[in-house]
C-alpha cells in the first residue's frame, strides 16, 4: 500500500515539474491536466469522493479547456523559441530550494495527531430544547454513516450556507470582470 502512495506522489510531482519546466505552454497545460487527475485519485483514496469528482470535472473539464483556448487566442507557442526564464531565475531557484529543505524538514518531522472531531455540547434549558438538541445529534449520528456526497452537501447547505452564497457571488463577479477585461475597449 505504501509503495502505491509513493508512486502516486512521484507521478503528481513529475507532472508539476513538467508544468514548470516545459517550453511549450500546451505541454504545460496537458501536464497539469494529468497531474490534476492524479490529485483526484489522491482525494479518492483519502475518502473524499465528492471532491475528487468535482476536481476532475471542474479542473480537467472546465478550467484547463479555458487555458487551452487562451493558448489558441494568443501566439503563446511562438515564445517557445525565446529564453524562458528571467535574470532572477537562479536566485529564485536557490531561495525556493532553501525554503523547501528547511520547511519540508520541519513539516515532515512534525507530529500529526488524529484528534477527535469537536462534539457540540449543547446546554438545554427547557425540555423542548433538549428534545430538539437530541434530534439534531441523532440526525448527525445517522449522517455519519451516510455516503460522502450527501454528507458534503448537507454541510454545504447548512453550516456553510453563507460562504456558499458568497462563493457564487465571487464567481459571478469574476466572470463579469473577465469579460470586461477581455472586451475590445478597455
Amino acid at each position, binding site marked *: 500500500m505504501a509503495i502505491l502512495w509513493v508512486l502516486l506522489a512521484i507521478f503528481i*510531482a513529475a507532472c508539476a515539474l513538467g508544468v514548470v519546466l516545459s517550453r511549450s505552454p500546451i505541454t504545460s497545460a496537458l501536464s*497539469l491536466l494529468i497531474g490534476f487527475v492524479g490529485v483526484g485519485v489522491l482525494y479518492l483514496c483519502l475518502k473524499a469522493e465528492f471532491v475528487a469528482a468535482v*476536481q476532475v470535472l471542474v479542473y480537467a473539464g472546465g478550467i484547463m479547456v479555458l487555458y487551452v483556448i487562451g493558448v489558441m487566442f*494568443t501566439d503563446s507557442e511562438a515564445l517557445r523559441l525565446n529564453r524562458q526564464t*528571467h535574470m*532572477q531565475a537562479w536566485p529564485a531557484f536557490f531561495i525556493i530550494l532553501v525554503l523547501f529543505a528547511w520547511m519540508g524538514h520541519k513539516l515532515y*518531522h512534525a507530529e500529526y495527531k*488524529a484528534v477527535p*472531531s469537536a462534539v457540540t455540547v449543547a446546554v438545554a434549558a427547557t425540555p423542548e430544547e433538549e428534545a430538539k438538541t437530541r434530534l439534531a445529534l441523532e440526525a448527525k449520528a445517522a449522517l455519519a454513516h451516510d455516503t460522502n456526497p450527501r454528507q458534503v452537501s448537507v454541510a454545504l447547505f447548512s453550516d456553510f450556507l453563507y460562504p456558499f452564497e458568497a462563493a457564487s457571488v465571487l464567481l459571478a463577479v469574476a466572470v463579469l470582470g473577465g469579460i470586461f477585461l477581455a472586451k475590445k475597449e478597455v
Partner: protein
Amino acid sequence: METSGFVLLGFLLFCLGLLGVLIRRNFIVVLLSAELIFAGAGINFIVFSNLWKNLAGQVFTIFLIAVAAGEAAIGLGLLIALYRVKHTVNVDVARELKG
C-alpha cells in the same frame, strides 16, 4: 507517517508553483503555476479532513476550486487584454508601472 508524506507533497506542489510564478516569462505558464499552488493547498485540506474526520476540509476544498475558477476567468481576461495591447504574452514587456 503517511500524513507527513502528504503534507510534504502539498508543500512540494506549493514550492514548484511558486518557482513557476517567479521564473517563467510566458503569462499562461504563470497562471498554470498558480493553479499548482491551489492544488497544494487542496491536498492539505483533504489530508487533514481525513485525519481529523472533519468535513469542513472537504467543503473548503470545494470553495478553493471555485476561487481557482474565478482566478482562471480573471487571468484569461488579463491575458487577452495584454495580448491586445502588447501583441505578446511575455510578462517582461508589461513594465509601465516600473518607476
